[in-house]
């Protein structure tokens, strides 16, 4: 019986200078449907690298990675694009909105590539922005918005195609505590609806809201703790 997300001995090396820098040195990790996982660890120890592999934004150098029971290494480019489109919603630390598009168009973007009809696309994007409390900013471009607003646009974009998995790499890292709490509440709400959420954070109070904390050190999982008493009581483990 395979888990929703399943990594076995995943390694990732980056070519630097003449050699290879091992950013991940053998990650073993299994996440079930409906879990809310916080990934913590010191800077530069491989958290973002791990997230990009889970999010199918990069290929592991070694080891095995299965998503929904499917071996990702064997997938074609287009199949990987389909995974990113249907299964994964990725929220980046640096927002990563397209600067030439408005908030509404940024939220529409995943639906454009998923061939959602224009009218439906627009309606859903607007509804998502309303849900995030930034409906009045729909026509603004990213540079015309605050960091908190931009990150909420990014979350709306991640939710555009209603994916079962939300990956967020330090979503509150660039936000003040209030905006951070709003974003975090939204993510917790999504988990409560049954979505699987994996979140990278440096903030212990943020990590404390997750039911499970995975600590990365030097490219390996140093410890992996479950907290049955966590306040964000969602569906819990065992879906799938």
């Amino acid at each position: 019986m395979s888990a929703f997300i399943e990594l076995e001995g995943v390694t990732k090396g980056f070519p630097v200078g003449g050699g290879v820098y091992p950013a991940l040195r053998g990650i073993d990790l299994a996440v079930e449907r409906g879990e809310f996982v916080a990934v913590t660890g010191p800077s530069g120890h491989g958290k973002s690298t791990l997230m990009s592999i889970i999010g199918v934004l990069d290929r592991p150098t070694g080891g095995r990675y299965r998503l929904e029971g499917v071996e990702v290494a064997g997938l074609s480019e287009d199949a990987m694009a389909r995974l990113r489109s249907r299964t994964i919603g990725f929220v980046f630390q640096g927002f990563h909105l397209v600067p030439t598009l408005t908030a509404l168009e940024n939220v529409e973007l995943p639906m454009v590539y998923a061939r959602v009809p224009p009218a439906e696309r627009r309606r859903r994007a607007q509804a998502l922005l309303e849900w995030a409390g930034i409906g009045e900013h729909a026509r603004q471009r990213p540079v015309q918005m605050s960091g908190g607003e931009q990150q909420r646009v990014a979350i709306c974009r991640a939710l555009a195609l209603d994916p079962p998995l939300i990956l967020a790499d330090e979503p509150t890292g660039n936000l003040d505590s209030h905006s951070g709490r709003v974003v975090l509440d939204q993510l917790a709400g999504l988990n409560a609806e049954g979505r699987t959420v994996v979140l990278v954070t440096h903030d212990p109070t943020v990590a404390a809201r997750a039911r499970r904390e995975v600590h990365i050190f030097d490219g390996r999982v140093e410890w992996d703790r479950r907290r049955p008493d966590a306040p964000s009581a969602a569906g819990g483990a065992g879906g799938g």
Partner: protein
Amino acid sequence: MVSAAGLGMALRAVLVNRLRSLLTILGVVIGVAAVIALTSLGRATTSRVESTVEGLGTNLLVVSPGAATATGFVSPQQAPITLAQEQALQAAVPAVDAMAPVITTAATLAYGSTSATVPTEATTVDIARVRNLRLAEGSFFSPAAQAAGAADIVLGAQAAADLFGSSDPPGAVGATVEVNGLPFTVVGVLAPLGQSGATNQDLSAFVPITTAMGELTGPADLSAIYASARSAGEMALATAEIDAALTAIQGLAPGSAPDFTVTSQTQVLSTLNTVTAELTTFLGAIAGISLLVGGIGIMNIMLVSVTERTREIGIRKAVGARRADILSQFVLEAVLLSLAGGVLGVAVGSLITLLGGRALGVAASPSASSDLVALAFSVAVGVVFGAYPAVRASRLMPMQALRYE
């Protein structure tokens, strides 16, 4: 995928960098404008040369004294061509439709206080048939007048205008003009013929050769014999007949080097055609090179924009764009850019064609077909040069692209 959304995004990308887009398409604008202007001006010049030469009569053969060598005419010729020889020749060449002897002399024509120096041809009435001359007014001198040695003169359009003013019609027929001091009666005025190379064919006059030999030039040798073949297909036959007959008439041994030259108008025409075709090809090649340079400009900008927009490509791929989506977006942008450049280039090229045509005095107009070819070419340039950077951009893994600084 060329969806409305894709088109919108490509248009947005082009418009957001207005100055850069403008600089990019400048090369294509110049290239397309050059192609349009050079080819249409070249075509206009070619067709003007052709129509001028055809105006002389396509079946025209000119027999001139002196043998042609690789370096030109041998001069002075050993044996002149005489009027008697011409008359003997007329009887011996069945493939020739009409033939006229010509003595060319520069005569001073005067009417009242006005006078002009006009290249005057002493010839027979057959010249009208040989050279396809049409009259605007009056008639050519009659065979009877020619036989009687009457002092009749036919004026070219320019000669008539110089002497009588350019009123239309000049009303010159019936007037008496002095030719080198001798009175001649104007019996006809020719319709305009136009320019032939450096020669204004309308600055001309024709008098009966019998009259001229009596009073104007005295007994003289012929400058040339003009002949027209029965049809364009019989040009070679007529040339051979003239060659053989005139060799015999001049008493040269058969097969010996002739002391005269037969030139056909088709030879001149085909030489001109070769020259103008080469010129047009050459101009087209220059224009093509400038279009190519314009295309390389597009590729450069697309490469720069790929580098600048690598993060954007990463974002698009991260939210589910397939390689084909990225590819078509960049190709679409390149096509939009080059199409805009093409349209602008057609406009500029048409303007240059009209102004240049006016300056050169030719009726040049850009043709719809060359516009279409230039447009299609500029789009092809866009696709070809837009594709390479697009392929490069679409190959990146999203994270590689997002980490790009």
